[in-house]
């Protein structure tokens, strides 16, 4: 039907106008005859159904309809490959990912675009804000945003993806239903994602996860700890985590594996998420004689933890998943008291490294484009996602789903983080050899900079101990 092609705001504008006019004529028609008693005051004018409220409404709809029109129009020029990007723009991972994707798309388009068959077509990002990291936003709204990309903007594929684990899991079913290719690349870490895919690989074949799973990051953490045990002879761990389900579950896994590795867990602290005081935990840590303070905390208040740690000169090296410490501005924010803390940035390439030739190129390009260094999780993986898509499309020679799926499954792409390939559950493979897998990234704050210290293939510096810990 012709009406279906109009954006719905235009349709509703027209509909509102038509209906209100109809309404007006209808009432005027019905109330045609004036009651006799009022003739004394002259003929009352037939009142059309008010002017203010319908006018306000119609005005709003016209404005929005106009905007809706504009949005639809801009898609006509060129013949771009439209990539939908559902991103939680209010969250830091979302903004990281957005920057990575925009940079990649600009680079690809500048160098001629993607070769599909015998034509070259540019990429076009359709970014939509899913708001999924904000409290109070239900998953159904996130899914509706994705449906808008698929059904209204009619994108060819989707990259980026919701970050919250609940939304990410529900989105798997959505993509299976609409048979749309999806490359999760910003930061949905839950290990249940590939578990779910493994339970029905045929149904969920449309979804690929190109960002990491927390399972690998935990393993890396333990390998890093083992390295420190070998180098410094450390044996005791004090665990301090944010009290959220994810942190609790992850820390349980870490503890079990650490104990198997020979570590002694001498204390544990679970603090509420926005806790602003950590001195109790830090005093306990010092008393317990732990040598490593293993942290898993995402709230911005952990900067206070670091400041208190430095002021109290606790002789335990902070290692772990510290959301606030990922930010380049963390040094300034803690007046340099965050020195020596070791934190993961999830993907090699977020700080200068020589792991792959593309890593430094990416770092400089990112700095040039955005005037700030890449922040952390999401920058590199979202950037690479566009290259993965480009590579797969060129190999498949078309945008048909099944062709793309088999092309993606055979990906072997040298990229910033290492070499990208997917396992049988469509999960990107992490490892320690940049020639066969992608690498994670553990950095230590040294002299105002984040210096990569692990994995070895990408390390640019050695792990240092704070002066009060040297014996």
């Amino acid at each position: 039907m012709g009406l279906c092609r109009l954006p719905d705001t235009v349709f509703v504008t027209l509909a509102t106008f038509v209906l209100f006019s109809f309404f007006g004529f209808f009432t005027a028609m019905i109330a045609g005859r004036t009651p006799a008693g009022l003739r004394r005051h002259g003929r009352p004018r037939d009142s059309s159904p008010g002017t203010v409220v319908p006018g306000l409404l119609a005005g709003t709809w016209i404005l929005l309809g106009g905007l809706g029109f504009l949005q639809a129009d801009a898609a006509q020029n060129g013949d771009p490959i439209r990539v939908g990007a559902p991103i939680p723009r209010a969250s830091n991972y979302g903004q990281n990912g957005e920057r990575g994707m925009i940079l990649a798309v600009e680079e690809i388009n500048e160098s001629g675009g993607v070769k599909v068959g015998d034509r070259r077509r540019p990429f076009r990002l359709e970014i939509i804000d899913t708001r999924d990291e904000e409290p109070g936003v239900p998953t159904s709204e996130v899914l509706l945003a994705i449906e808008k990309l698929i059904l209204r903007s009619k994108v060819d594929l989707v990259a980026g993806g919701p970050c919250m684990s609940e939304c990410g899991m529900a989105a798997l079913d959505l993509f299976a239903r609409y048979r749309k290719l999806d490359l999760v690349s910003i930061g949905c870490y839950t290990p249940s994602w590939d578990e779910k895919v493994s339970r029905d690989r045929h149904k969920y074949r449309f979804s690929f996860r190109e960002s990491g799973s927390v399972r690998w990051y935990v393993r890396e953490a333990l390998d890093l700890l083992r390295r420190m045990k070998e180098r410094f002879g450390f044996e005791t761990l004090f665990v301090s985590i944010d009290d959220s389900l994810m942190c609790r579950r992850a820390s349980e896994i870490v503890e079990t594996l650490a104990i198997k590795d020979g570590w002694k867990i001498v204390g544990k602290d679970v603090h509420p998420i926005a806790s602003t005081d950590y001195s109790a935990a830090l005093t306990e840590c010092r008393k317990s004689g732990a040598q490593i303070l293993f942290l898993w905390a995402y709230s911005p208040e952990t900067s206070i933890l670091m400041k208190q740690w430095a002021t109290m000169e606790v002789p335990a090296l902070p290692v772990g998943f510290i959301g606030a410490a990922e930010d380049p501005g963390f040094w300034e924010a803690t007046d340099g008291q965050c020195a020596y803390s070791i934190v993961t940035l999830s993907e090699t390439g977020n700080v200068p490294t020589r792991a792959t030739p593309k890593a430094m190129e990416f770092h400089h390009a990112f700095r040039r484009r955005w005037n700030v260094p890449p922040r952390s999780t999401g920058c590199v993986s979202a950037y690479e996602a566009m290259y993965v898509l480009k590579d797969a499309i060129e190999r498949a020679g078309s945008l048909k789903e099944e062709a793309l799926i088999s092309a993606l499954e055979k990906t072997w792409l040298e990229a910033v983080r290492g070499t990208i390939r997917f396992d049988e559950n469509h999960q990107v493979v992490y490892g320690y050899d940049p020639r066969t897998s992608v690498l994670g990234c553990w950095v230590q704050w040294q002299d105002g900079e984040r210096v990569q210290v692990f994995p070895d293939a990408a390390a640019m510096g050695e792990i240092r101990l704070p002066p009060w810990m040297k014996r």
Partner: protein
Amino acid sequence: MSTRKLRKRRVDRGIHVRTRGLYALSSYREMAYLLAPRLFLLVGLLGLPPALDLYGQRVLCAAAVFAMPALAFDFLAEYVGLVCLGGALFIGFGGYAAGFLNARLGLSPVLTIPLGTLAGACLSTLVILPCLRLRGVYFAMVTFMIPLFARHVIVALGLLGSTEGITGLDTLPDPLIEIYVILAAVLASLFALRRLVNEDLGLILRGIKENDQAVAASGISILRYRVLAVFIASCIGCFAGAYLAHLYGWLGLSLFAMDFSILPIAAAVMGGTGTLAGPVVGAFLLTSLSEALRGFGQLRVVLYCLVLLAFILYKPEGLLKVLERKYQQFERREEV
């Protein structure tokens, strides 16, 4: 400069006066006058889906899901005197009940939606029962806090997938079936409630709202009727929740999200509290406004709240009452 002073005077339209009582049946014109708004709503809502593309239909589904707790809120607030600010409670319990039946017991959506509605309604009524002794703003505040409480309890006890929820529930077979099921439910609840408030039960409830001591003095158990009213309202709300769980095949903590409490109230305010059709119209308008504003990114909520504020300040009686007034009366200016 003349010193004529004009004032607005509203007079009932002739046809409005003529359609009161039995004279409504006296000619087709009177009957049409009465039927027109209802038919307009019915035909408009039921005729909209084929005219929209698939995305528009999904927006309509989402809007209808919000319309039902808005209806429940309006019914409870204006006809029973209980301002229940916790619409998320109904959606959460309904969704969890239906999802639980589907995921753990393997029943199909045809069974889980009705059963989930009833189970959710029983659960919500049980939860609201102790709060019924309160009144006014205290009841409002407690019901606002209950969904938050439920969220924390579910996380603390690790029930039903806690933070990750359960996905992969069965969905309904066809998008057209989906949209018509919920639209039918909305229209059925609306007309049923409208009928209910004029029946004996409705009169008792309105009496309780006006002066509960007087009703109690007549030997009627106020508690019993309030519980019944809450049960009816929660059936309506929980249906929306059960349906939502099967719309996207998911249940999770965000079924208790604050958005599900706030949007129905905003819709009721916009559409006009007291007129049961107002919240429904308000929900549809507000949801489509919200979707249309997606292009604005962060400004979306700001614009949304500005619209709500404008309605509260300048047209507090709501859209539907304004339209009703224009339909039933005409205005003119006359000299004082």
